[in-house]
Protein backbone atom coordinates (compact mmCIF):
# COMPACT_ATOMS: atom_id res chain seq x y z
CA UNK A 1 0.00 0.00 0.00
CA UNK A 2 1.23 3.46 -0.89
CA UNK A 3 1.98 6.06 1.82
CA UNK A 4 -1.04 8.12 0.77
CA UNK A 5 -3.68 5.93 -0.75
CA UNK A 6 -6.83 7.26 -2.38
CA UNK A 7 -9.22 4.55 -3.49
CA UNK A 8 -12.54 4.70 -5.30
CA UNK A 9 -13.18 8.29 -4.30
CA UNK A 10 -16.52 9.72 -5.38
CA UNK A 11 -18.02 13.15 -4.81
CA UNK A 12 -21.17 14.79 -6.14
CA UNK A 13 -22.56 18.27 -5.54
CA UNK A 14 -26.30 17.92 -6.08
CA UNK A 15 -26.72 16.03 -9.31
CA UNK A 16 -23.25 16.94 -10.58
CA UNK A 17 -20.70 14.13 -10.09
CA UNK A 18 -17.46 16.02 -9.69
CA UNK A 19 -15.13 13.12 -8.84
CA UNK A 20 -15.74 9.64 -10.26
CA UNK A 21 -14.01 6.52 -8.96
CA UNK A 22 -10.70 8.30 -8.40
CA UNK A 23 -7.77 6.08 -7.43
CA UNK A 24 -4.22 7.15 -6.67
CA UNK A 25 -1.31 5.83 -4.64
CA UNK A 26 1.41 8.27 -3.63
CA UNK A 27 4.73 7.12 -2.24
CA UNK A 28 6.41 8.83 0.70
CA UNK A 29 8.32 11.93 -0.38
CA UNK A 30 6.73 11.98 -3.82
CA UNK A 31 5.62 15.20 -5.50
CA UNK A 32 2.39 14.63 -7.40
CA UNK A 33 0.57 17.21 -9.49
CA UNK A 34 -3.12 17.10 -10.22
CA UNK A 35 -3.38 18.79 -13.59
CA UNK A 36 -6.55 19.60 -15.45
CA UNK A 37 -8.87 22.33 -16.67
CA UNK A 38 -11.29 24.23 -14.39
CA UNK A 39 -14.06 21.99 -13.10
CA UNK A 40 -12.18 18.72 -13.67
CA UNK A 41 -12.39 17.81 -9.96
CA UNK A 42 -8.71 18.30 -9.03
CA UNK A 43 -9.39 20.80 -6.25
CA UNK A 44 -12.25 18.66 -4.92
CA UNK A 45 -9.88 15.69 -4.63
CA UNK A 46 -7.38 17.89 -2.77
CA UNK A 47 -10.10 19.23 -0.47
CA UNK A 48 -11.22 15.70 0.32
CA UNK A 49 -7.65 14.80 1.29
CA UNK A 50 -7.53 17.96 3.43
CA UNK A 51 -10.86 17.07 5.05
CA UNK A 52 -12.77 20.12 3.82
CA UNK A 53 -15.10 17.95 1.74
CA UNK A 54 -16.49 14.60 2.77
CA UNK A 55 -16.36 11.93 0.04
CA UNK A 56 -19.61 10.22 -0.93
CA UNK A 57 -17.70 6.99 -1.40
CA UNK A 58 -14.15 5.72 -1.19
CA UNK A 59 -11.33 5.91 1.31
CA UNK A 60 -8.20 7.94 1.99
CA UNK A 61 -5.40 6.46 4.06
CA UNK A 62 -2.14 8.05 5.17
CA UNK A 63 0.60 5.69 6.32
CA UNK A 64 -1.94 2.90 6.66
CA UNK A 65 -4.35 4.95 8.79
CA UNK A 66 -7.82 5.60 7.40
CA UNK A 67 -8.43 9.35 7.66
CA UNK A 68 -11.64 9.47 5.58
CA UNK A 69 -13.85 10.16 8.60
CA UNK A 70 -11.44 12.46 10.44
CA UNK A 71 -12.04 16.19 10.72
CA UNK A 72 -9.62 18.46 8.89
CA UNK A 73 -7.97 19.58 12.13
CA UNK A 74 -7.21 15.98 13.10
CA UNK A 75 -5.43 14.93 9.89
CA UNK A 76 -1.93 16.41 10.25
CA UNK A 77 -2.07 17.67 6.68
CA UNK A 78 -0.60 21.07 5.78
CA UNK A 79 -2.23 23.21 3.15
CA UNK A 80 -1.19 26.24 1.12
CA UNK A 81 -3.98 28.21 -0.54
CA UNK A 82 -4.07 30.21 -3.75
CA UNK A 83 -5.01 33.35 -1.83
CA UNK A 84 -2.23 32.83 0.78
CA UNK A 85 -4.82 32.90 3.62
CA UNK A 86 -2.37 34.38 6.12
CA UNK A 87 -4.03 35.59 9.30
CA UNK A 88 -4.01 39.40 8.91
CA UNK A 89 -4.00 40.04 12.66
CA UNK A 90 -0.86 38.01 13.29
CA UNK A 91 2.75 38.79 12.43
CA UNK A 92 4.73 36.55 10.10
CA UNK A 93 6.30 34.73 13.06
CA UNK A 94 2.92 34.32 14.76
CA UNK A 95 1.43 33.00 11.53
CA UNK A 96 4.20 30.43 11.17
CA UNK A 97 3.88 29.48 14.84
CA UNK A 98 0.07 29.23 14.77
CA UNK A 99 -0.06 25.47 14.21
CA UNK A 100 2.60 24.88 16.85
CA UNK A 101 0.68 26.95 19.41
CA UNK A 102 -2.53 25.07 18.63
CA UNK A 103 -0.63 21.78 19.07
CA UNK A 104 0.61 22.97 22.48
CA UNK A 105 4.32 22.95 21.56
CA UNK A 106 6.49 24.57 24.27
CA UNK A 107 7.22 28.24 23.65
CA UNK A 108 11.02 27.90 23.24
CA UNK A 109 10.69 24.94 20.94
CA UNK A 110 8.03 26.72 18.87
CA UNK A 111 10.19 29.87 18.60
CA UNK A 112 13.13 27.76 17.40
CA UNK A 113 10.95 25.99 14.85
CA UNK A 114 9.59 29.33 13.59
CA UNK A 115 13.17 30.61 13.18
CA UNK A 116 14.06 27.43 11.32
CA UNK A 117 11.07 27.76 8.99
CA UNK A 118 11.71 31.45 8.28
CA UNK A 119 15.32 30.59 7.42
CA UNK A 120 14.08 27.78 5.16
CA UNK A 121 11.93 30.16 3.12
CA UNK A 122 14.67 32.79 3.03
CA UNK A 123 12.87 35.40 5.14
CA UNK A 124 14.70 35.18 8.48
CA UNK A 125 14.37 38.89 9.27
CA UNK A 126 10.70 39.43 8.48
CA UNK A 127 9.19 37.66 11.50
CA UNK A 128 7.89 40.88 13.04
CA UNK A 129 6.10 42.11 9.92
CA UNK A 130 2.40 41.80 9.23
CA UNK A 131 1.16 40.04 6.07
CA UNK A 132 0.05 43.30 4.43
CA UNK A 133 3.65 44.50 4.60
CA UNK A 134 4.86 41.65 2.38
CA UNK A 135 4.78 41.10 -1.38
CA UNK A 136 2.65 38.32 -2.88
CA UNK A 137 5.65 36.01 -3.28
CA UNK A 138 6.78 36.63 0.31
CA UNK A 139 3.26 36.00 1.60
CA UNK A 140 3.09 32.68 -0.22
CA UNK A 141 6.49 31.69 1.20
CA UNK A 142 5.19 32.47 4.68
CA UNK A 143 2.08 30.41 3.95
CA UNK A 144 4.36 27.53 2.96
CA UNK A 145 6.39 27.89 6.16
CA UNK A 146 3.20 28.03 8.20
CA UNK A 147 1.94 24.82 6.60
CA UNK A 148 5.28 23.06 7.13
CA UNK A 149 5.94 24.21 10.71
CA UNK A 150 3.81 21.56 12.49
CA UNK A 151 5.62 18.82 10.47
CA UNK A 152 2.58 17.54 8.55
CA UNK A 153 2.61 14.08 6.97
CA UNK A 154 1.32 15.44 3.68
CA UNK A 155 1.57 18.90 2.12
CA UNK A 156 -1.27 20.09 -0.11
CA UNK A 157 -0.73 22.99 -2.49
CA UNK A 158 -3.90 24.43 -4.03
CA UNK A 159 -2.75 26.46 -7.03
CA UNK A 160 -0.28 28.36 -4.82
CA UNK A 161 1.34 30.20 -7.71
CA UNK A 162 -1.73 31.34 -9.62
CA UNK A 163 -2.00 34.74 -7.95
CA UNK A 164 1.65 35.65 -8.57
CA UNK A 165 3.24 37.35 -11.56
CA UNK A 166 5.08 35.23 -14.13
CA UNK A 167 8.66 35.78 -12.96
CA UNK A 168 7.94 35.17 -9.27
CA UNK A 169 5.91 32.11 -10.23
CA UNK A 170 8.88 30.49 -11.93
CA UNK A 171 11.33 31.25 -9.11
CA UNK A 172 8.89 30.24 -6.37
CA UNK A 173 8.02 26.92 -7.98
CA UNK A 174 11.73 26.06 -8.03
CA UNK A 175 11.96 27.02 -4.36
CA UNK A 176 8.90 24.95 -3.48
CA UNK A 177 10.42 21.92 -5.20
CA UNK A 178 13.79 22.43 -3.44
CA UNK A 179 12.13 22.74 -0.03
CA UNK A 180 9.94 19.70 -0.72
CA UNK A 181 12.96 17.60 -1.71
CA UNK A 182 15.01 18.82 1.25
CA UNK A 183 12.25 17.92 3.71
CA UNK A 184 11.20 14.80 1.78
CA UNK A 185 7.56 15.63 2.38
CA UNK A 186 4.81 13.92 0.39
CA UNK A 187 3.14 16.64 -1.65
CA UNK A 188 0.05 17.04 -3.81
CA UNK A 189 0.09 20.10 -6.02
CA UNK A 190 -3.03 21.26 -7.84
CA UNK A 191 -2.58 23.34 -10.95
CA UNK A 192 -4.09 24.05 -14.32
CA UNK A 193 -0.72 25.21 -15.64
CA UNK A 194 0.92 22.34 -17.52
CA UNK A 195 4.35 23.97 -17.53
CA UNK A 196 4.28 24.17 -13.73
CA UNK A 197 3.20 20.55 -13.43
CA UNK A 198 5.74 19.29 -15.96
CA UNK A 199 8.62 21.19 -14.39
CA UNK A 200 8.34 20.20 -10.72
CA UNK A 201 6.47 16.91 -10.42
CA UNK A 202 7.66 13.35 -9.91
CA UNK A 203 4.36 12.24 -11.40
CA UNK A 204 1.39 14.01 -12.93
CA UNK A 205 -2.25 13.02 -12.74
CA UNK A 206 -4.09 14.52 -15.70
CA UNK A 207 -7.74 14.89 -14.73
CA UNK A 208 -10.79 15.45 -16.86
CA UNK A 209 -14.46 15.23 -15.97
CA UNK A 210 -13.75 13.88 -12.49
CA UNK A 211 -11.53 10.99 -13.54
CA UNK A 212 -7.79 10.48 -13.80
CA UNK A 213 -7.16 10.26 -17.54
CA UNK A 214 -3.49 9.39 -17.19
CA UNK A 215 -0.97 9.08 -14.37
CA UNK A 216 2.70 9.16 -15.19
CA UNK A 217 6.05 10.90 -15.10
CA UNK A 218 6.11 14.29 -16.88
CA UNK A 219 8.24 12.81 -19.67
CA UNK A 220 5.70 10.04 -20.31
CA UNK A 221 2.69 12.32 -20.04
CA UNK A 222 4.19 14.68 -22.60
CA UNK A 223 5.64 12.13 -25.00
CA UNK A 224 3.21 9.26 -24.65
CA UNK A 225 -0.26 10.67 -24.00
CA UNK A 226 -2.71 7.81 -23.73
CA UNK A 227 -5.88 9.70 -24.55
CA UNK A 228 -6.94 12.39 -26.94
CA UNK A 229 -7.70 14.68 -23.98
CA UNK A 230 -4.21 14.32 -22.46
CA UNK A 231 -2.65 14.81 -25.86
CA UNK A 232 -4.66 17.98 -26.37
CA UNK A 233 -4.30 19.38 -22.86
CA UNK A 234 -0.59 18.83 -22.27
CA UNK A 235 1.52 20.76 -24.72
CA UNK A 236 0.61 21.66 -28.28
CA UNK A 237 -0.29 18.81 -30.54
CA UNK A 238 -1.37 18.46 -34.16
CA UNK A 239 -3.77 15.60 -34.67
CA UNK A 240 -4.32 13.79 -37.91
CA UNK A 241 -6.93 11.16 -38.67
CA UNK A 242 -5.61 8.44 -41.00
CA UNK A 243 -6.76 5.12 -42.36
CA UNK A 244 -4.88 1.97 -41.41
CA UNK A 245 -3.63 0.21 -44.54
CA UNK A 246 -1.37 -2.50 -43.11
CA UNK A 247 -1.48 -2.95 -39.34
CA UNK A 248 1.62 -5.21 -39.27
CA UNK A 249 3.99 -2.60 -40.72
CA UNK A 250 2.09 0.43 -39.47
CA UNK A 251 1.18 1.71 -42.93
CA UNK A 252 -1.34 4.54 -42.70
CA UNK A 253 -2.94 6.72 -45.37
CA UNK A 254 -3.20 10.44 -44.62
CA UNK A 255 -5.28 12.08 -47.33
CA UNK A 256 -3.53 11.16 -50.55
CA UNK A 257 -0.23 10.38 -48.86
CA UNK A 258 0.81 7.06 -47.40
CA UNK A 259 3.28 6.86 -44.50
CA UNK A 260 4.89 3.93 -42.71
CA UNK A 261 5.28 4.11 -38.96
CA UNK A 262 7.53 1.05 -38.84
CA UNK A 263 5.71 -0.49 -35.88
CA UNK A 264 2.59 -2.63 -35.67
CA UNK A 265 -0.79 -1.06 -34.93
CA UNK A 266 -3.56 -2.56 -32.84
CA UNK A 267 -6.24 -1.16 -35.17
CA UNK A 268 -7.65 -3.29 -37.96
CA UNK A 269 -7.00 -2.63 -41.64
CA UNK A 270 -9.39 0.02 -42.99
CA UNK A 271 -10.15 1.51 -39.57
CA UNK A 272 -9.46 5.11 -38.61
CA UNK A 273 -6.46 5.89 -36.42
CA UNK A 274 -5.58 9.22 -34.79
CA UNK A 275 -1.96 10.25 -35.07
CA UNK A 276 -0.48 13.14 -33.13
CA UNK A 277 2.62 15.24 -33.60
CA UNK A 278 4.39 17.67 -31.28
CA UNK A 279 5.45 20.88 -33.06
CA UNK A 280 9.11 20.28 -32.17
CA UNK A 281 9.12 16.89 -33.96
CA UNK A 282 8.09 18.33 -37.32
CA UNK A 283 10.93 19.87 -39.32
CA UNK A 284 10.88 22.44 -42.05
CA UNK A 285 12.70 20.94 -45.07
CA UNK A 286 14.48 17.59 -45.08
CA UNK A 287 16.09 16.86 -41.73
CA UNK A 288 18.53 13.98 -41.16
CA UNK A 289 16.85 10.86 -39.71
CA UNK A 290 13.38 12.04 -40.74
CA UNK A 291 12.23 9.49 -43.27
CA UNK A 292 8.73 10.80 -43.84
CA UNK A 293 8.77 13.75 -46.19
CA UNK A 294 5.56 15.57 -47.07
CA UNK A 295 4.94 18.52 -49.43
CA UNK A 296 3.50 21.47 -47.50
CA UNK A 297 2.33 25.07 -47.81
CA UNK A 298 2.98 27.77 -45.20
CA UNK A 299 -0.29 29.08 -43.69
CA UNK A 300 0.82 31.18 -40.71
CA UNK A 301 4.10 32.30 -39.16
CA UNK A 302 4.24 33.37 -35.48
CA UNK A 303 7.51 34.84 -34.27
CA UNK A 304 7.77 34.03 -30.51
CA UNK A 305 11.34 35.20 -29.90
CA UNK A 306 13.61 32.21 -29.50
CA UNK A 307 11.12 29.99 -31.31
CA UNK A 308 9.13 30.49 -34.52
CA UNK A 309 5.85 28.58 -34.68
CA UNK A 310 4.73 27.85 -38.23
CA UNK A 311 1.37 26.46 -39.30
CA UNK A 312 1.45 24.45 -42.51
CA UNK A 313 -0.98 22.51 -44.64
CA UNK A 314 0.24 18.99 -45.43
CA UNK A 315 -1.28 15.59 -46.12
CA UNK A 316 -4.73 17.15 -46.35
CA UNK A 317 -4.59 18.62 -42.84
CA UNK A 318 -2.99 21.42 -40.83
CA UNK A 319 0.10 20.94 -38.65
CA UNK A 320 2.13 23.15 -36.32
CA UNK A 321 5.89 23.04 -36.27
CA UNK A 322 8.48 24.86 -34.19
CA UNK A 323 11.84 25.99 -35.41
CA UNK A 324 14.54 27.84 -33.50
CA UNK A 325 15.06 31.44 -34.43
CA UNK A 326 18.31 32.20 -36.26
CA UNK A 327 19.30 35.69 -37.24
CA UNK A 328 20.73 34.49 -40.58
CA UNK A 329 17.61 32.51 -41.49
CA UNK A 330 14.41 34.57 -41.69
CA UNK A 331 11.09 32.67 -41.45
CA UNK A 332 9.50 31.55 -44.75
CA UNK A 333 6.79 33.76 -46.26
CA UNK A 334 3.13 32.84 -45.85
CA UNK A 335 1.82 30.92 -48.86
CA UNK A 336 5.23 29.53 -49.86
CA UNK A 337 5.44 25.89 -50.98
CA UNK A 338 7.90 23.81 -48.98
CA UNK A 339 8.56 20.36 -47.57
CA UNK A 340 8.29 19.08 -44.03
CA UNK A 341 9.96 15.99 -42.63
CA UNK A 342 9.32 13.85 -39.59
CA UNK A 343 10.62 10.66 -38.03
CA UNK A 344 8.18 7.73 -37.74
CA UNK A 345 9.20 7.23 -34.13
CA UNK A 346 8.01 10.74 -33.23
CA UNK A 347 4.45 10.08 -34.37
CA UNK A 348 2.17 9.38 -31.42
CA UNK A 349 -0.58 6.88 -32.07
CA UNK A 350 -3.44 7.78 -29.77
CA UNK A 351 -5.01 4.75 -28.12
CA UNK A 352 -8.55 3.59 -28.36
CA UNK A 353 -9.23 4.77 -24.80
CA UNK A 354 -10.78 8.15 -25.46
CA UNK A 355 -12.91 9.03 -22.46
CA UNK A 356 -13.86 12.66 -22.47
CA UNK A 357 -11.88 13.16 -25.61
CA UNK A 358 -12.56 16.24 -27.58
Amino acid at each position, binding site marked *: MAFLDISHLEKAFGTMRVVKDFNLGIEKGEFISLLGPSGCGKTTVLRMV*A*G*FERPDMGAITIDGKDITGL*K*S*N*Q*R*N*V*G*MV*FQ*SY*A*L*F*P*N*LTVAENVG*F*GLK*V*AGVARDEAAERVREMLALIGLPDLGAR*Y*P*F*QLSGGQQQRV*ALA*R*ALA*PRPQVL*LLDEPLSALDAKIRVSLRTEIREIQQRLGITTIFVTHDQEEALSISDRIVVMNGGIAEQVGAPFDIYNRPETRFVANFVGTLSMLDGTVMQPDTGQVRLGDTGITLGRPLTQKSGSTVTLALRPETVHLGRAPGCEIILPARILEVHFLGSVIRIRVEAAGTQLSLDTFNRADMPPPPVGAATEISLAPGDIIVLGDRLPGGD
Partner: protein
Amino acid sequence: MTKLWSWGALLFGVLFFLMPLYGMTEFSLKMRRGEYSLDAYTAVINNPQFQATFSYSVIMALVTIAFGVLLVVPTAFWVRLKMPWLRPWVEFITLLPLVIPSIVVVFGYIRLYNTSSWLPLTGTALGTNILLMFGYTVLALPYMYRAVDTGLRTIDVATLTEAAQSLGAGWVTIIARVILPNVLGAVLSGAFLTFAIVIGEFTMAALLDRPAFGPFMQLLGANRAYEPAALAVIAFGITWACMGLIQLVTRFSKHNRLAR
Protein backbone atom coordinates in the same frame (compact mmCIF):
# COMPACT_ATOMS: atom_id res chain seq x y z
CA MET B 1 -20.77 79.91 -7.38
CA THR B 2 -21.40 76.18 -6.83
CA LYS B 3 -18.70 76.22 -4.17
CA LEU B 4 -20.47 79.07 -2.41
CA TRP B 5 -23.72 77.10 -2.35
CA SER B 6 -21.88 74.08 -0.97
CA TRP B 7 -20.39 76.11 1.84
CA GLY B 8 -23.79 77.69 2.46
CA ALA B 9 -25.46 74.27 2.75
CA LEU B 10 -22.73 73.08 5.08
CA LEU B 11 -23.05 76.16 7.26
CA PHE B 12 -26.84 75.73 7.43
CA GLY B 13 -26.41 72.06 8.45
CA VAL B 14 -23.84 72.88 11.11
CA LEU B 15 -26.00 75.67 12.55
CA PHE B 16 -29.10 73.44 12.45
CA PHE B 17 -27.37 70.86 14.62
CA LEU B 18 -25.15 73.04 16.76
CA MET B 19 -27.52 75.89 17.70
CA PRO B 20 -29.83 73.74 19.87
CA LEU B 21 -26.76 72.14 21.46
CA TYR B 22 -25.27 75.55 22.10
CA GLY B 23 -28.57 76.81 23.55
CA MET B 24 -28.91 73.77 25.80
CA THR B 25 -25.29 73.96 26.98
CA GLU B 26 -25.57 77.68 27.63
CA PHE B 27 -28.82 77.14 29.57
CA SER B 28 -27.20 74.36 31.64
CA LEU B 29 -24.52 76.84 32.75
CA LYS B 30 -27.02 79.48 33.94
CA MET B 31 -28.14 77.87 37.18
CA ARG B 32 -26.45 80.60 39.20
CA ARG B 33 -28.30 83.85 38.57
CA GLY B 34 -26.35 86.42 36.52
CA GLU B 35 -23.23 84.35 35.81
CA TYR B 36 -22.11 81.12 34.16
CA SER B 37 -21.33 78.24 36.50
CA LEU B 38 -21.10 74.45 36.62
CA ASP B 39 -23.60 74.25 39.47
CA ALA B 40 -26.07 72.17 37.46
CA TYR B 41 -23.33 69.69 36.58
CA THR B 42 -22.13 69.53 40.19
CA ALA B 43 -25.68 68.95 41.34
CA VAL B 44 -26.19 66.15 38.82
CA ILE B 45 -22.87 64.43 39.49
CA ASN B 46 -23.24 64.71 43.26
CA ASN B 47 -26.72 63.28 43.12
CA PRO B 48 -26.37 59.75 44.60
CA GLN B 49 -29.10 58.56 42.25
CA PHE B 50 -27.04 59.70 39.28
CA GLN B 51 -24.06 57.68 40.44
CA ALA B 52 -26.16 54.63 41.25
CA THR B 53 -28.19 54.65 38.03
CA PHE B 54 -25.22 55.47 35.83
CA SER B 55 -23.12 52.68 37.38
CA TYR B 56 -26.03 50.28 36.97
CA SER B 57 -26.47 51.19 33.31
CA VAL B 58 -22.73 50.97 32.62
CA ILE B 59 -22.60 47.47 34.14
CA MET B 60 -25.72 46.46 32.20
CA ALA B 61 -24.17 47.84 29.01
CA LEU B 62 -20.96 45.86 29.52
CA VAL B 63 -22.87 42.65 30.21
CA THR B 64 -25.11 43.30 27.18
CA ILE B 65 -22.05 43.86 24.99
CA ALA B 66 -20.41 40.65 26.21
CA PHE B 67 -23.59 38.66 25.62
CA GLY B 68 -24.19 40.36 22.27
CA VAL B 69 -20.67 39.55 21.06
CA LEU B 70 -20.99 35.93 22.19
CA LEU B 71 -24.34 35.64 20.42
CA VAL B 72 -23.71 37.62 17.26
CA VAL B 73 -20.10 36.82 16.28
CA PRO B 74 -20.51 33.00 16.13
CA THR B 75 -23.96 33.38 14.51
CA ALA B 76 -22.81 35.78 11.81
CA PHE B 77 -19.67 33.67 11.25
CA TRP B 78 -21.64 30.45 10.94
CA VAL B 79 -24.25 31.98 8.64
CA ARG B 80 -21.55 33.39 6.38
CA LEU B 81 -19.52 30.16 6.39
CA LYS B 82 -22.05 27.35 6.31
CA MET B 83 -25.52 28.77 5.67
CA PRO B 84 -25.30 31.77 3.35
CA TRP B 85 -28.82 31.02 2.13
CA LEU B 86 -30.05 31.87 5.64
CA ARG B 87 -28.54 35.37 5.58
CA PRO B 88 -31.61 37.31 4.34
CA TRP B 89 -33.72 35.65 7.05
CA VAL B 90 -31.22 36.40 9.80
CA GLU B 91 -30.96 39.98 8.58
CA PHE B 92 -34.76 40.25 8.63
CA ILE B 93 -34.93 38.91 12.18
CA THR B 94 -32.22 41.27 13.38
CA LEU B 95 -34.11 44.19 11.87
CA LEU B 96 -37.32 43.39 13.76
CA PRO B 97 -36.37 45.40 16.88
CA LEU B 98 -36.40 48.53 14.68
CA VAL B 99 -40.06 48.00 13.73
CA ILE B 100 -41.41 46.44 16.92
CA PRO B 101 -41.61 49.12 19.64
CA SER B 102 -39.68 48.25 22.77
CA ILE B 103 -42.88 48.66 24.82
CA VAL B 104 -44.35 45.71 22.90
CA VAL B 105 -41.22 43.65 23.51
CA VAL B 106 -41.17 44.40 27.22
CA PHE B 107 -44.89 43.64 27.63
CA GLY B 108 -44.24 40.37 25.88
CA TYR B 109 -41.42 39.67 28.33
CA ILE B 110 -43.61 40.50 31.32
CA ARG B 111 -46.37 38.21 30.07
CA LEU B 112 -43.95 35.37 29.35
CA TYR B 113 -41.66 35.64 32.36
CA ASN B 114 -43.92 36.94 35.16
CA THR B 115 -43.99 35.30 38.57
CA SER B 116 -46.80 32.92 37.60
CA SER B 117 -45.13 31.79 34.37
CA TRP B 118 -42.98 28.67 33.77
CA LEU B 119 -39.84 30.80 33.97
CA PRO B 120 -40.51 33.51 36.60
CA LEU B 121 -37.59 35.78 35.79
CA THR B 122 -39.33 38.89 37.09
CA GLY B 123 -39.64 37.31 40.55
CA THR B 124 -36.10 38.31 41.54
CA ALA B 125 -33.89 41.35 40.96
CA LEU B 126 -31.25 39.17 39.31
CA GLY B 127 -33.84 37.51 37.06
CA THR B 128 -35.20 40.91 36.04
CA ASN B 129 -31.69 42.19 35.36
CA ILE B 130 -31.08 39.17 33.13
CA LEU B 131 -34.38 39.82 31.36
CA LEU B 132 -33.46 43.48 30.88
CA MET B 133 -30.07 42.46 29.51
CA PHE B 134 -31.83 40.19 26.97
CA GLY B 135 -34.07 43.10 26.07
CA TYR B 136 -31.08 45.41 25.56
CA THR B 137 -29.41 42.72 23.42
CA VAL B 138 -32.52 42.58 21.22
CA LEU B 139 -32.62 46.37 20.90
CA ALA B 140 -28.93 46.48 19.93
CA LEU B 141 -29.18 43.49 17.58
CA PRO B 142 -29.70 45.44 14.32
CA TYR B 143 -26.56 47.48 14.97
CA MET B 144 -24.40 44.71 16.39
CA TYR B 145 -25.28 42.18 13.67
CA ARG B 146 -24.77 44.64 10.84
CA ALA B 147 -21.45 45.84 12.25
CA VAL B 148 -20.12 42.29 12.67
CA ASP B 149 -21.47 41.11 9.31
CA THR B 150 -19.85 44.07 7.56
CA GLY B 151 -16.59 43.24 9.34
CA LEU B 152 -16.81 39.62 8.21
CA ARG B 153 -17.36 40.77 4.65
CA THR B 154 -13.92 42.38 4.64
CA ILE B 155 -12.10 39.09 5.29
CA ASP B 156 -12.07 35.77 3.45
CA VAL B 157 -13.87 33.88 6.21
CA ALA B 158 -13.98 30.50 4.42
CA THR B 159 -10.29 30.34 3.47
CA LEU B 160 -9.04 31.69 6.80
CA THR B 161 -11.19 29.10 8.58
CA GLU B 162 -9.86 26.29 6.40
CA ALA B 163 -6.28 27.51 6.87
CA ALA B 164 -6.75 27.44 10.65
CA GLN B 165 -8.42 24.02 10.48
CA SER B 166 -5.54 22.59 8.45
CA LEU B 167 -3.23 23.81 11.22
CA GLY B 168 -5.19 21.84 13.78
CA ALA B 169 -7.46 24.57 15.18
CA GLY B 170 -10.96 23.79 16.46
CA TRP B 171 -14.00 26.08 16.22
CA VAL B 172 -13.37 27.95 19.48
CA THR B 173 -9.75 28.68 18.52
CA ILE B 174 -10.82 29.76 15.04
CA ILE B 175 -13.42 32.20 16.34
CA ALA B 176 -11.30 33.50 19.22
CA ARG B 177 -7.90 33.75 17.52
CA VAL B 178 -8.66 34.21 13.83
CA ILE B 179 -12.14 35.60 13.24
CA LEU B 180 -12.76 37.84 16.27
CA PRO B 181 -9.42 39.71 16.13
CA ASN B 182 -9.96 40.41 12.44
CA VAL B 183 -13.42 41.89 12.97
CA LEU B 184 -12.53 43.60 16.26
CA GLY B 185 -13.03 47.09 14.83
CA ALA B 186 -16.51 46.11 13.67
CA VAL B 187 -17.29 44.40 16.97
CA LEU B 188 -16.20 47.51 18.86
CA SER B 189 -18.39 49.71 16.63
CA GLY B 190 -21.32 47.47 17.53
CA ALA B 191 -20.26 47.49 21.18
CA PHE B 192 -20.14 51.29 21.45
CA LEU B 193 -23.50 51.62 19.73
CA THR B 194 -24.86 49.07 22.19
CA PHE B 195 -23.36 51.12 25.03
CA ALA B 196 -25.04 54.29 23.79
CA ILE B 197 -28.40 52.49 23.41
CA VAL B 198 -28.27 50.96 26.89
CA ILE B 199 -27.24 54.20 28.60
CA GLY B 200 -30.20 56.12 27.15
CA GLU B 201 -32.85 53.35 27.14
CA PHE B 202 -35.99 54.25 29.13
CA THR B 203 -38.98 52.04 28.25
CA MET B 204 -37.69 48.60 29.18
CA ALA B 205 -35.88 49.71 32.32
CA ALA B 206 -38.89 51.72 33.53
CA LEU B 207 -41.44 48.96 32.89
CA LEU B 208 -39.23 46.31 34.46
CA ASP B 209 -38.67 48.74 37.35
CA ARG B 210 -34.87 48.70 37.25
CA PRO B 211 -32.75 51.60 38.58
CA ALA B 212 -31.25 52.52 35.20
CA PHE B 213 -29.94 55.81 33.87
CA GLY B 214 -32.77 56.32 31.34
CA PRO B 215 -35.58 56.49 33.92
CA PHE B 216 -33.37 58.72 36.10
CA MET B 217 -32.96 61.20 33.22
CA GLN B 218 -36.73 61.22 32.74
CA LEU B 219 -37.36 61.74 36.45
CA LEU B 220 -34.89 64.60 36.62
CA GLY B 221 -36.31 66.18 33.48
CA ALA B 222 -39.79 66.17 34.97
CA ASN B 223 -38.82 67.86 38.25
CA ARG B 224 -35.84 70.20 37.67
CA ALA B 225 -34.97 73.08 35.35
CA TYR B 226 -31.20 73.27 34.77
CA GLU B 227 -30.07 69.77 35.75
CA PRO B 228 -31.81 67.99 32.80
CA ALA B 229 -29.90 70.22 30.39
CA ALA B 230 -26.63 69.41 32.16
CA LEU B 231 -27.53 65.74 32.07
CA ALA B 232 -28.29 65.93 28.34
CA VAL B 233 -24.88 67.53 27.74
CA ILE B 234 -23.24 64.76 29.78
CA ALA B 235 -25.17 62.14 27.77
CA PHE B 236 -24.01 63.76 24.52
CA GLY B 237 -20.47 63.76 25.84
CA ILE B 238 -20.69 60.03 26.57
CA THR B 239 -22.07 59.28 23.10
CA TRP B 240 -19.40 61.35 21.37
CA ALA B 241 -16.70 59.75 23.51
CA CYS B 242 -17.98 56.35 22.30
CA MET B 243 -17.80 57.49 18.68
CA GLY B 244 -14.32 58.87 19.22
CA LEU B 245 -13.25 55.56 20.72
CA ILE B 246 -14.57 53.69 17.65
CA GLN B 247 -12.41 55.94 15.46
CA LEU B 248 -9.38 55.50 17.72
CA VAL B 249 -9.68 51.74 17.87
CA THR B 250 -9.95 51.37 14.10
CA ARG B 251 -7.12 53.84 13.50
CA PHE B 252 -4.72 52.21 15.92
CA SER B 253 -5.55 48.64 15.01
CA LYS B 254 -1.96 47.57 14.26
CA HIS B 255 -2.45 44.94 11.56
CA ASN B 256 -4.47 47.13 9.21
CA ARG B 257 -2.92 50.50 9.89
CA LEU B 258 -1.25 50.70 6.49
CA ALA B 259 -3.71 48.53 4.65
CA ARG B 260 -6.48 51.08 4.98
